[in-house]
């Protein structure tokens, strides 16, 4: 066992681990916020378009996270981290798809 000096990479490990769900959260809040504002202002037609667009972008970003996670090598812990990060991103994609379905099923601003 050897001691290690300060590392910038370590500080980035947790954000990377959670990246997929951070993307999920940003998409969720953005879509929720947009819908609230859109329904107040009567832009209900734009709502499904924006939802789908946001989902496409979020899924694409998560695809990048999955690729980066699976490519990660180095120590056993590093590979573990990459694998979990990829799985987290995959779970996020499932959640995003799930949460996009209402755009096709529900009349946006009906109460």
């Amino acid at each position: 066992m050897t001691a290690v000096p300060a590392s910038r990479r370590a500080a980035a490990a947790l954000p990377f681990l959670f990246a997929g769900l951070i993307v999920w959260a940003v998409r969720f809040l953005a879509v929720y916020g947009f819908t609230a504002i859109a329904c107040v202002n009567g832009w209900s037609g734009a709502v499904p378009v924006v939802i789908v667009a946001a989902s496409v972008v979020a899924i694409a970003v998560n695809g990048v996270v999955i690729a980066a996670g699976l490519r990660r090598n180095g120590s056993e812990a590093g590979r573990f981290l990459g694998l979990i990060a990829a799985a987290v991103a995959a779970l996020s994609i499932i959640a995003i798809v799930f949460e996009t379905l209402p755009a096709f099923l529900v009349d946006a601003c009906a109460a």
Partner: protein
Amino acid sequence: MSDTTAPDLPNPLPRPPGELEELERVWRRPRGIRRLTEVNNSQIGLYYIGTAVMFFLFAGVLALLMRAQLALPENALVDHDLYNQLFTMHGTVMMFLFAVPAVEAMGVLLLPSMVAARDLPFPRLSAYAFWAYFIGGTIFLVSLFLDVAPRAGWFMYPPLSSAEYTPDVSSDFWLLGIGFIEISAIAGAIEIIVGVLRTRAPGMSLDKMPVFAWVMLVFAGMIVFAFPAMIAGTALLELERAFDWPFFIAERGGDPLLWQHLFWFFGHPEVYIIFLPAAGFLSMIVPTLARRPLIGYRAIVLAVIGTGFLSFGLWVHHMFTTGLPAISMSFFSAASMAVAIPSGIQIFAWIATIAAGRMQLTTPALFVLGFLFIFTIGGLSGVMVAMVPFDWQAHDTYFIVAHLHYVLIGGMVFPLFAAIYYWVPMISRRRLSERIGKVVAVLLFLGVNLAFFPMHVSGLMGMPRRVYTYPDGLGWEVTNLLSTIGAFVIAAGVALFLFDLARNLRLSTTRNAGNVWDAGTLEWLPTGTYQTRSIPIVTSRDPLWDQPNLAADVEAGRYYLPGTATGRRETIVTSSVDARPQYVLTLPGPGWTPFFSAAFTAAAFMLLTVKAVIPAILCGAIAIGGIIAWMWRADIGPRAPVDIGGGLRLPVNITGRNAHATAGTVVLILCAGTLFGCLLFAYFFLWTVNADWPPAGAGAPSPSWAAIAAVLLLAASLAWRAGRGVLTSHDQPRPRLMFRLLVLGAAAAATAAVVADGVSLWQAGLRPADSAYGAILYAITAYQAFLTGALIIMAGIVFARSLAGRIGGPWRLSFEVTALFGHYVVVQGLVALAVTRLFPGVAS
């Protein structure tokens, strides 16, 4: 054990004489009244869990009173006003004073030994959190006996809880009492995050970390992002009640729904905040009982992280009947179903582990099986109420009461009982009785199902929640009587459990019953007050199963740090991913400041509830004085490197990015940022509910004042930066004066900025009581002023330390955390100005 030295162990035998005695002396626990000064997490954890159990009993008695009242129709045991207090206190105490503190307590109790740290990095913070909770919570209970207990329901919806409909102090008790206990939960969360990430035994990389440590990491992270919403909500409602700032009053542009959003943005993650640690207990207990490693470790880690995040996307499912747009509700309905995926992963992993192993039907095993049954039923009824149309039918009926008790009792109370039966041998000379324990498990299982299953039926038959009685002839008689009988069966089980505790619990750190389950994780290593004699190198997820002779070698002192290297309490700090040793952190020993600061913090908040403003301010000042005294001694600066064995020389108390205090400050900033985010959410929310924003007639704050404030903030940031440069430069005499001027200048610029901001609001003719617009602008400025006030105190400490020669060169951690916080205050101030000054303009 042989006394030949294996070449791969860091320290040779025999150990030098006096090494163990010195270690014991450093970690000796104070006796008598000075027990109050102990800050060690394993000790505080015991106080913590004991207190939580006390609150559990209290809230349970309240439930029995309610069930006694509802046993028969038109019963007159309890009148409506007392009944309102009973259900409000029952829910509040169970959620805030029992459930969250109990799991947090298990965290601080178990984590140090589970990751083989001598202690977590901020022991005084844990002690402060505990005492604040103990004293504040106890005073909160007393309110019930003085007939001033809160009575507006555990979620305190305005307008019922607002000044108009609850003019007495009962809501204030809730808002100030509970709001302040949230602060204590956050303090615990900071300790747990930094502890899990930085004090694990060498070699315990993230992929070898016990699931419980993962769970507590996610748990603490959730507290950091959920509890600030609650603090923001309680602060706004208290401001409305005390000063008539109309955040929730519709006539002046407020909206009661804003409270519901803030409350449930906290309140839904709260359910998982309680459940995840309980799931963590199970992931530790099930493999031991099944005699095999956990199946699906990686899947469980994924599930825990997934649940932690997704649970933040569910809050609106408590608000399906508030008239939101259908599509918004659909998002939350979908998210509510999606979160069942990670929960399901965990349940299947436990079932698979049980199926693949040989489960012994011990008491903890019975509680685990009870959990699986009860929690799964709660989960199923949860998916039912996630469906918007079904929820419209079930909302506010006993169906919900049944659902939430199945989830919370199944998801938290059963695992907690399993955990208590499982881990008591670690802290007690005797284990609890298997015979009595099994009876307790059976009684609780029968009682819970008998009490709560009929409530589904009562609810479907239309019985509303929170009614103190019901008329005869509606068909609710049988189910209610059954529920009452069930409640008393639960009480019998709990009473028997207390009897078992009284008979068998004999607390002891050094002579505990030990590894009676033959478990594989490090909390079962032989311990003293210093935790383990030496700190092991971990190479497996179940080290006691896979690393032969580990316990004996650890106890003999053959691993790292077998004594005290600095003559103080200390622990090894390791890197967050690979757990490689980085430095030795000296830890504080017993002291009075956490206890007194906590006592006076609690006193300050509780005096505010009864509007004793001057005594409250005095108590607050004493509390801050205590914290300053504590901080004065906190940063003792780097020391000469020490040898921990195996040829490894580590620095002592480093500064900079990798320091534990930097990590703690980052977490605190995340909390502060979330609270700020909640205020911005309130701003935008109020904007969407008001057609005119700013409202007609409200003045516009002058942009030049805002520009001045922005320039001052940027100047403050530059001053912090320059201060760091001066501190790290090598010429000494003149820069010292320069450094002090820069620190004072930075604090002064941040202060001037917030004053300029406030003045601009006032000059524009805005008054906080006039409209929700004015109120939220002043609230954002007031929060900036609050953080600036904290920054002034921090800068004052740095200034004073500089005068006293306690800062300079590499000894600068207190400056670095102050500067980091200072930069955050600047960023927040700039964002606040941008949002509040630019957005209405952009919109119109």
